[in-house]
């Protein structure tokens, strides 16, 4: 796409992004949060997922402003363009990874993002308890779903994001799925129609 070549993710990563030396601080901080949540909710992993999603949503609302400020991008015209922006530029400038976009449905409203590496879950293994609940219920990187949902909401796209597969659970790859529900209309000031 000609627009994404203008905002080349790689170039931006090299020149424009302030980096910290140690991504492990980031990984360990996230791990600390997940384990604290598990303790707070008494190992009710559904609740933990929801809380991570909520936190991600709040992060996403702020992240989008920084994304727009760094790339100067305008609103995308189609959902396909959005997918390209997210995978080529978004993930690159924030997490330094480049997921692949696959599995488009016929109507062009749902696609999958396959992450080949996940800095949130570097060196993480889920412990096996007596009933394997953690493997069944916990999506470790659920915060990413919230981030995408929050960020896209701020640019008037109502999407659902959920995990399909996760390497931590023993699957072969980590896969997220995004579905566009609708375009949100801009709000009208009181008194206008």
């Amino acid at each position, binding site marked *: 796409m000609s627009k994404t070549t203008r905002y080349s993710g790689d170039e931006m990563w090299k020149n424009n992004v302030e980096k910290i030396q140690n991504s492990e601080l980031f990984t360990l901080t996230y791990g600390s949060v997940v384990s604290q949540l598990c303790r707070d909710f008494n190992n009710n992993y559904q609740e933990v997922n929801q809380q991570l999603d909520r936190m991600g949503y709040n992060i996403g609302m702020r992240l989008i*402003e920084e994304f727009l400020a760094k790339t100067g991008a305008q609103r995308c015209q189609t959902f396909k363009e959005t997918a390209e922006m997210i995978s080529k530029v978004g993930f690159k400038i924030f997490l330094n990874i480049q997921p692949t976009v696959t599995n488009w449905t016929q109507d062009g409203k749902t696609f999958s993002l396959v992450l080949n590496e996940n800095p949130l879950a570097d060196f993480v293994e889920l412990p096996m308890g007596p009933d394997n609940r953690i493997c069944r219920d916990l999506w470790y990187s659920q915060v990413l779903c919230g981030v995408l949902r929050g960020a896209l909401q701020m640019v008037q796209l109502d999407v659902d994001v959920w995990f399909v597969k996760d390497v931590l659970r023993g699957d072969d790859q980590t896969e997220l799925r995004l579905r566009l529900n609708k375009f949100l209309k801009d709000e009208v*000031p009181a008194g206008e129609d």
Partner: protein
Amino acid sequence: MTLHSFYIFDRHCRCVYSREYTQGSDGGSTNRSNESDTAKLMFGMLYSLKNIASKLGDKEARNNLKSLSTGKFRLHLFETATGLRFVIVSDPAIDNLQSVLWELYSNYYVRNVAQNALSPVDFACDELLANPKFVSETDRFLSSLPVFR
């Protein structure tokens, strides 16, 4: 002063920040005219103009309102993809403040509001942007501009 005031409207059509620059020693007021008719009328006008602009141009190209002038003042507008609108009211002599508005957004707003843990991003019904660091930094930036005399 050739810059008169600076407003920010959020995506819920509310004025979350208003800053007036006056010549007196008090340096102008902050956030005192958010609910005023001026702010509401200004927003309504900009909204209607945006609708007209999108109908006048052809469908594909984006047609953004950049400035609006009368005999006594000029309004400069910048809208982000997230629905934030930055407005500066100045003398008609000043031509183009788009880069200033962009700087205000990408540098000062993002750093002091979006990246600040203890400052809200989605303002509730009666919340205003009153972050002292944001106010002082934007004041300093705007007063250091050559057009601000």
